[in-house]
């Protein structure tokens, strides 16, 4: 199973690498920004359309 751990958007926490932040760049009609959401390293990434192999 592909997991978040294998994705370039996954940034593990220093003190607990089993969890981390999924950080993505977004450009909407008014502004550009980076967004972040907590994810576990073992989260199934097979259905994630933002997955990018490390």
């Amino acid at each position, binding site marked *: 199973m592909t997991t978040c751990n294998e994705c370039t958007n996954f*940034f593990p*926490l220093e003190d607990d690498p089993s969890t981390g*932040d999924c*950080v993505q*760049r*977004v450009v*909407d*009609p*008014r*502004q*550009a*920004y*980076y*967004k*972040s*959401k*907590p994810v576990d390293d073992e989260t199934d990434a097979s259905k994630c359309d933002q997955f990018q192999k490390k």
Partner: protein
Amino acid sequence: MTTVAAKQSKGLKEHEKAQEWWWVAEQTRSKRLDYLRKAVWKKGAIGGVYNPGIKIDLERPILFTEAWKENNQDPQMLRKAKAIAHVLENITIFITDQAQLVGYIGSLPHTIQWYPEGASIVNEEVYNEPGTVPEPEEKSLKIMAEINDYWGGQTAIDKLGRVLNPEDLVKYMSGVIGWGVPTSAYGYAGKDYEYILTGKRGFEDIIEEIDGYMDAAEKKTSGEPGPDILPLYDKILNWEAMQIILEASINFAERYARLARVISENFESDPKRKEELMRISETCEQVPAKPPRNLQESFQFDWFMQTLARFEAYEGAMPCRPDYYHGPYYDKDVNIDKRLTKEEALDLVGEFMIRAHEFGAFIPRLGREGLQGVTGTFVWTMGGVNKDGSDACNDLTVAFMQAARLVRVSNPTFGFRWHPKVKEEVMRECFECIRHGLGYPSMRNDPILVENTVYWYGHPVEEARTWVHQACMSPCPTTKHGFQPIRMASATANCAKMIEYALSDGFDKVVQMQMGPKTGDPRQFKGFEELFQAWVAQMKWMMSLLVRTVNLGRIKDPEFFGRPFLSSISERSVESGIDVVSPEGERGNCWVTFFTWVENADSLAAVKKLVFDEKKYTMDEMITALEAEWEGYEEMRLDFVNNAPKWGNDDDYVDDIMVRCLREVASYSHKIKCPSGNNWPALPENVSGNIHYASLVGALPNGRRLGDALYDGGISPGPGLDKKGPTAVLKSCSKFDHVKDGRAFLLNQRLSPTQLAGEKGYKLWSAYMKTWAELGMDHVQFNMVDDTTLRSAQTDPEKYQELIVRVAGYSAHFVDISRKTQDNIIQRTVVGL
């Protein structure tokens, strides 16, 4: 000068000459401010309808409900703290390019927040609002339906509805006499800034303070039994709730710190921006965990606090005093340490305003119509005095005025606390903002309002001097016992109904219901006195009903809603372990907002003159015409418009009636009490309620027809009815006591931009302000945009997107308000000074 620069400079001068201040702002502000200002998704509804692209945020409702269900064994405050902590740990966060301050209440920049635990009636509206359901719509609607099903009957307002007097509930819910809802889910929360924003403590310090209280309480609960230890069991759980939410808040800030670092180290290539991002990271590590050390940290601390409070509830106002509380950090950074240039500081000040402007939460239609174009009434308090009475204006006061002209936001706006020691430099800055057509700052008479605050509630004068605008207009201290944690907007009266009911035996012909008390068949009234006494009875009934609902809402709120975060940043709650909305430990600072007030004096005067004094018409004839909504009686109606005296012309005939009405209200304000046992004075002002209520108030003897816009509010004369010039307006408005006859009184004035151009304009305005102050008025605000510009904006709105006007206690972009409200503003008399 390069050709491009020359062109720009020429453009700027032309724009200045044409008084097109929005283009001036665009060409003058920094690239960063320009980007950030344009990056904001407009959350205020345009004429009541949300902008395309604005979507309901579903992350908070889903996460909150998830945790709420899981912790059903916990008491309200603890359960709530756990639910919000779950949101803060998991909601998507973002950092906008070029931003230096972070934090938003939604998961993405175009989202507006929804609080499903507040009111089922609002939840239904959220579900049915066209255009705001997030994509994919079908999936979102399914989630929203599930959330609504879960909360149906369980929201704060559903629960309150079950304990309210059923008759009060029906009358209140009719929507014709009141406004807002009696819960802290949607209200105006004051803050104990003297505790939290004086740089003495961060959230870690509060957690430690609470540890101390908990240890002492736990010791007692394992000691000798007695009644004194019984409340401690609940308090320990409340303290636990406060600690949970404070820790979650620190972690929330750390998530931003991490994100900024990740961007800096992995995505950003510009060295300057990399450095800025590391500074953001450092800032979010420091605050709110620890006290701020510099201006950026101080603003960030405040902004986190404001954002976190809005994860807990829809706070529709932002009672704060940023120049006073952040001023020392500005001074340190800019003047003493010189770690920031004035321009760099101005970028931070402007961005602080933009962050507040970005705020957006779902407002039901009633609220959107009454508050067109904005998402709240964030009236930030500027200027004023220190606790010892000395001038509190500082360099940051000036910086805020300058930043306001650059970012030109309609929310927040400023209310400036004028006093005799304000320096000319600061007054000039206020005038420049007004001259640039912002409609703010509103000018407040500080000595009068401090005295008023002491008079009505007995706040000590040192505490009264800390006052901030709790909503549009009402002063409230920022101290432990003086601050009011929540103003529930439902104590807002649609006052035109007082005279309407006095002339209809209390029956409302619009909603077809007996609303007010039966005060007698008006056709049988033999003289003015009988009519006046009927009016007094209707006034008392209306004030009582609204105040009863709010008093009950206040008492029940900790049980039905709960404010763990607000409690955790309030000294009296941290100390006592009691939800801050509980009135215990609060001195009281309530007021009843009076919408559509002046119609009463004008209508009473018209009946007195044309019916009882001149006997031109009988009561029967007049009531018949009113019952027909003046239809078929146009000649008679015009007689009531043109030949009856109108407020605002220095005419004692009608002014005496106004003063008498106010004194009746003031006397009754001492009889009705808040849960702390303090008074409920009245505060005449309007948001755009004058438009919302147009179709709900029947014909009146001032000549108004059903459907006509009501007056723009407060003590402002009816639009176009003040025919004797600005001094006559001021004279009328100074015939009553602005300390003892009510809480505060809104006065709108329209000035001519042509007349007030240049130095001569400033001098004229200064002389006007001197008269205003000498006459003891407490408030005045100005629109300084001419009819031509406003009419051009009506025909070509695209060109005038950034044109701002003062609507009532708030400002809005002209193109965002309804045609009716636009017309109402144009109708206001432009006074020559």
